[in-house]
């Protein structure tokens, strides 16, 4: 019985020119979003590769210098020394022998690999850069994004598949279902249908199944095509697991909007009133509430501006430079093991610079920690308030699924900080101990490998958003299910 209505409704949909152009529009939007999302991921990868290549070539040149120097020492005899202020500029050992020079003047770029689904929801990746430089320098460089970004882009967000699903898909859903019952009632066919052995629930469910079936089949298929088109890591089970989650989230979110159409339709108003009510619901849930929540987060927990941070860093630097001798004493007081023999202490510019950097780091660190803490507080406020809007839940869910969530970035930064310590320590110790770096040492530099979070952790973080959407969906289904009995088929 239902099958008849479903196939009738499907045929009716495809006969409508408006629906056909809507499908073309969705296909176009998803194709463009896939292209645009992938472009921004590609740009990051290119940026990371360029930065890595640049730093690698600098270290490579330094290493080549040490190889020549080593050969020279071997040929001419003498001691393999490290470059320091004792040597005249242009003469003596190359800079590459000085661990302080290598550690401070070259950076190691650490990258967070993009997941196979990264281009589906690029999230905050335009400001949370997925590659960060690590050097012997204080941590302040880690959070600084020197990428030039079009400010308009930052304001509007990216046009990725998440945007299409969260913002545009509900409009398509509402466009084909806002007059689900009201149009039949206005056309007079509702009474004709219900004079047959069909219940209103059955009719409603069949009409929804037809529409949701066609739309979701189209969207999920387009998602699959997009996945193939962006050439993501298709051999990895992680990619497919994430794609499965993307399909589930999209399914639940789309069905929620169909349920909203049903909910509005059971009140028996005319099509125009239904359309206005649903447009208002979309505006409130997709535009107004997320904006208000974001406003609330930035008002309650305002993050210090980057300008303030920079100013504070400069002040600390000036202060440090003023009394670097005192700082140097203080530094050696803290690190007795590094006090060099002889009287080269004050001569050693790099040692001074080193102590300066530490001083600046000490002064600026609390500001950065506070900055990061404020961002985390904003994030957790959004997490808590997500349940009032399916759009926020969906955005958080899609970021999580695509591996562009704040939490995964935090996980990456944790590893970055740990590696920063390891990297800094490696060079600091060798530098302060006046250890001359040999070419073979270049292979022993600490290596970084990003450790991915267990999939279970991702699922656990995804759970609140997915469950929240499911609860909303069931609520939106239950209300019409219970009130449909009172629907007025015939007007008195």
């Amino acid at each position: 019985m239902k099958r008849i209505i479903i196939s009738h409704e499907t045929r009716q949909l495809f006969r409508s020119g408006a629906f056909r152009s809507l499908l073309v529009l969705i296909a176009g939007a998803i194709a463009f979003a896939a292209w645009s999302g992938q472009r921004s991921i590609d740009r990051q990868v290119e940026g990371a590769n360029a930065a890595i290549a640049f730093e690698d070539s600098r270290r490579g040149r330094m290493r080549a210098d040490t190889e020549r120097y080593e050969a020279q020492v071997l040929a001419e005899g003498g001691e393999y020394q490290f470059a320091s202020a004792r040597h005249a500029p242009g003469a003596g050992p190359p800079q590459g022998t000085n661990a302080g020079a290598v550690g401070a003047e070259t950076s190691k770029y650490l990258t967070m690999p993009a997941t196979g689904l990264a281009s589906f929801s690029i999230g905050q990746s335009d400001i949370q850069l997925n590659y960060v430089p690590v050097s012997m320098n204080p941590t302040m460089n880690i959070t600084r994004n020197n990428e030039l970004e079009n400010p308009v882009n930052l304001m509007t967000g990216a046009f990725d598949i998440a945007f299409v699903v969260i913002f545009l898909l509900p409009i398509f859903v509402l466009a084909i279902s806002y007059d689900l019952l009201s149009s039949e009632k206005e056309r007079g066919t509702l009474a004709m249908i219900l004079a047959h052995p069909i219940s209103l629930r059955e009719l409603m469910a069949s009409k929804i199944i037809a529409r949701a079936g066609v739309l979701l089949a189209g969207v999920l298929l387009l998602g699959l095509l997009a996945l193939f088109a962006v050439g993501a890591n298709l051999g990895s089970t992680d990619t497919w697991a994430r794609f499965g989650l993307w399909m589930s989230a999209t399914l639940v979110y789309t069905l929620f909007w169909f349920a909203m159409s049903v909910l509005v339709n059971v009140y028996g108003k005319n099509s125009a009133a239904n359309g206005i009510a649903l447009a208002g619901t979309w505006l409130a849930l997709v535009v107004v509430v997320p904006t208000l929540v974001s406003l609330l987060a930035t008002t309650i927990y305002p993050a210090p501006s980057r300008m303030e941070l920079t100013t504070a860093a400069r002040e600390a630097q000036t202060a440090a430079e003023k009394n670097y001798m005192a700082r140097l004493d203080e530094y050696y007081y803290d690190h007795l093991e590094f006090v060099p023999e002889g009287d080269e202490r004050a001569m050693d510019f790099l040692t001074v610079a080193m102590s300066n950097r530490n001083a600046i780091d000490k002064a600026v660190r609390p500001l950065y920690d506070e900055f990061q803490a404020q961002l985390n507080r904003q994030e957790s406020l959004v997490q808590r308030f997500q349940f009032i809007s399916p759009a926020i839940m969906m955005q958080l869910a899609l970021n999580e699924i695509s591996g562009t969530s704040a939490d995964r970035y935090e996980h990456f930064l944790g590893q970055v900080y740990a590696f920063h310590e390891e990297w800094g320590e490696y060079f600091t110790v060798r530098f302060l101990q006046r250890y001359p770096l040999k070419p073979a040492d270049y292979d022993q530099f600490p290596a970084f490998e990003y450790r991915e979070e267990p999939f279970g952790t991702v699922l656990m973080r995804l759970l609140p958003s997915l469950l929240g959407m499911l609860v909303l969906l069931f609520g939106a289904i239950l209300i019409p299910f219970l009130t449909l009995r009172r629907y007025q088929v015939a007007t008195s």
Partner: protein
Amino acid sequence: MLQATNLTKSYGDIEALKGLDMTVEGGDIYCLLGANGAGKTTTISLFLNFIEPDGGTASVCGLDVTREPLETKKLLAYIPEQVMLYGNLTALENLRYFAQLGGHDYSQEEYREFLHRVGLQSEAMDRRVKTYSKGMRQKVGVAIALAKQARALLLDEPTAGLDPKASNEFSELLLKLKADGAAILMATHDLFRAKETGTRIGIMREGRLVDELSTDEVSHADVEKIYLQHMHAGGHYAQEGAGSA
């Protein structure tokens, strides 16, 4: 076949039906007469379970329509004042859809045969019904009732606005259905057709059935006289009827 027992229905403060008792047997064409607002459409809507009665029962072939809404609808066919169809489908496609909704399925030839029996031209069957006149759509409505093999028909002013020829053709179709043993309940304003095609006439006023006549016992003139007598007996009715119409 169709039976109303002490059927009552109110819309807010307005009592639309006040304890209606009536029976329509198979082979009967029962014509409900009465001014607008007398309760004719309410009666039909109650038989279709489109609205719930406040009291009493409406039953089809012994089944209470509120308890067995889907079973009774298998037995019923409904032809409203305007048979509304899917304009972008052909008459054949519309007929097939509604027949399938009724739980039947036929071959393409059989569908054509149904449309042929109600007098629709062959070339019109494959045309989209948005080009149809009202008379043609009413014929499709009868074809749907035929395909559904309905035991009882509910008609709500089906001939209003039809030209005399189309109206006559429609009446002929009803007589065929009657000959097949269907119970037909028709709300109408057409006293002439009621006497001509109906077997019985019920006159309603203010939610009550005030008189019942057998058409073979009265003349055309009698029908009109009795009808008007009842309308005038209401006295105050003229104003009230206009108000609630």
